Every structure is written in C-alpha cells, then in structure tokens.
C-alpha cells in the first residue's frame, strides 16, 4: 500500500512546489474535476474489493470522467444551467456510497482475520 500513498504525497508536494495559478474563472470546473477524480478512485478501490478491477477501465474512467465532469460543468455554465450543482450532488452521493461499501468490506475483512487469528476456539 505504500505506492499509492507515495503517489498522493508526491502529488501534494508537487502541487505545493510547482505554483500553478488556476485562473479564477476555471476554479469551479477544477473543483468538479477533483470531485470526479476522487469518485473514480474510490470506484476503482471498490471494484478491486469486489474482485472485478480492470486496469483499462479504471484508467480510462479516471481520465474521461475527470475531464468530462469539468467540461460538462463548463458547458452548463455556457447554457446558463447549473450543472455544477448536479455534478456536486451526484459525485458526492457516489463517493459516499463507495466509501460506505469500502468501509463495510474492510470491516468484514478485519472481522474474518480476527476470527482466523483467534484460531476457531470451538472447532467450528
């Protein structure tokens, strides 16, 4: 698990070191993009837990979802529709769903390990 965490750390450090100023008008769209990226990430994690993780699906989903979320929000703004709000709601819901699934799965895994570690006391 060290590699993904290292990736996150490197990303944050890079973001701090490389001072890229996001133009004021685009801040809203990058916020949605971050949300979409987070959602895809958690979705990938969940797929792995379910045993149906596909690297191509994950990578393409990550790239396309992220950019498309920002693009759709921008188009919505052009049309005067608050797609922004819809995107926030949808991604938030999905993120919560994924997080709760991952949490339950992890808890189940811990419980099983604990049981195995205790070594079947009653022989059943």
């Amino acid at each position, binding site marked *: *698990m060290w*590699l*993904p*965490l*290292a*990736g*996150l*750390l*490197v*990303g*944050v450090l*890079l*973001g*701090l070191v490389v*001072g*890229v*100023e*996001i133009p*004021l008008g685009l*801040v*809203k769209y*990058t*916020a949605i*993009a*971050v949300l979409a*990226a*987070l959602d*895809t*990430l958690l979705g*990938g*994690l969940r797929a*792995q*837990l379910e*045993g149906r*993780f596909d*690297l191509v699906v*994950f*990578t393409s989903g*990550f790239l396309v979802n*992220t950019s498309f979320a920002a693009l759709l929000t921008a188009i919505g*703004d052009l049309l005067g529709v608050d797609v922004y709000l819809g995107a926030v709601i949808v991604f938030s819901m999905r993120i919560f769903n994924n997080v709760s699934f991952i949490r339950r*799965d*992890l808890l189940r*895994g*811990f419980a099983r*390990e604990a049981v195995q570690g205790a070594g079947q006391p009653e022989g059943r």
Partner: protein
Amino acid sequence: MSYALRGEAVPGRPTGLQLALAAALLCVGLLGTWQLRAERSIRAALRIPSQRLEELTFLLQEQARQREELESHIAALRERLSRTEEVATRDRGALQALQRRLEALRLAAGVEPLRGPGVVVELRDSPKPLAEGEDPNLVLVHYTDVQAVVATLWGAGAEAVAVNGERVVSTTGLTCVGTTILCNARRLAPPYVIVALGNPRALAAALEAEDSPLTALRAFGLPVRVATGQDLRVPAYRGGFQFRFAQVDRP
C-alpha cells in the same frame, strides 16, 4: 489491510492496481492542492466563497455597463449643454445687435424723446394793427414760413426738430388749415416755437445767413427770435406710422 488490497502476485513488485492508484492519487493530490491554493488565494483576496464569484462577477459587469451608459449619457448632456450655451451666446449677441439697430432706428424714426444742445426759433404774427386795405397775409406767419425754417434747420445738420411740441418726423407734413397750421394731425397756433437739436453754432449760422427765410420774415416786420441752448428737449413723435400702399422693396 484487506485481503483484496494485498493481492500481490510477486512480493515486492507493485501490481497494476497499485500503479494505477498511485498515478491517480498523484493526479488528485496535484489537482487538489492547486485547487486549494486557488481557493485560498481567492478567499484571501476577496473574502468571499468562490460560489458567489459568478454572481458577483455578473453584478460587477452589470454595474460597469451601467456606469458606462451613464457616463455616455453625461457626455451627451454636457455636449448638449455646451451647444445650447453656444447658441444662447450667439443669440444674445444677435439680440444685442438687433437692439442696437432698433435703438438707432427709433432715434431716426423720432419715437424717442431727445435732449441736447441746439437752437430755438420763435415766429410770431406781426403785433402791429392791420392798416386799411392791407393784405393780412403780409403780417401772418404762414405754414410755408415754418416749413422753410424747418428745412433750413435740417439742411444745417439738425438731428431732431419739433414745432410747438410736435416732433417733425419723416412723414410729417405741414399744411395750412385756416388760421392754424396742421402738423402731425394737430393744429398749431402762433407763436410757433421751433426747437432743433444739433450743433448750435452751425444751426444759428444757417438761420442768420443772407438767404435764410428769417431774413425775409424780418423784412416784413414779423418778430423773429433765435436763441441757442445747451439743454433743449424735443418730445417723441406720438403718432403712428402706416404703410398701406408702400411695400418694402428688397432685391
């Protein structure tokens, strides 16, 4: 950690999942950090959440547009004002010129009372009693005499002439009505006092000349008096001007 996340085919070598997650997290970290920094700089600069940014931008643009509109309005009004002022000054100038011209014309027409230096001529009928068989015309002052004196005064450069308080203007005619003289539709009776404004010396000299009508009058024994004055008054013409037949002939 969960059993599923530990799925390492070869121990020590990262799986595709871990690589993908690392790359994705790197992107998220990078983007998120930039996002946070932008958000913080916005908050520091504006002290408002970025959600209201759109709305405020719109408001700002709206206000700027309105201000531009008002400014152009002001400019238009200023221009109108300056144009109006220009016209007003021009009109005022024209008005002053017209007033000056009107003043001159009123002076020329004789509808203004005037004062100034000039001469006073007094003509009287002869005081001596009429002898038997003598022509009374010889002892009376005729309108022609008055006319001759007035003409002499005009000729000597008089600027305004009045006979017994009747101003002599361009349409004034002296006619004989019985024993009186009709001037400006008013009857004048002797003695006839003719006041003329102008250079007193020039006027007096013209009156005392050899061929002056006064010479003939004096020869007939009529009492004639000429006096110069420095502050004589000539009244204004009180009648009207009527042009029913004559028309302005301007090319």
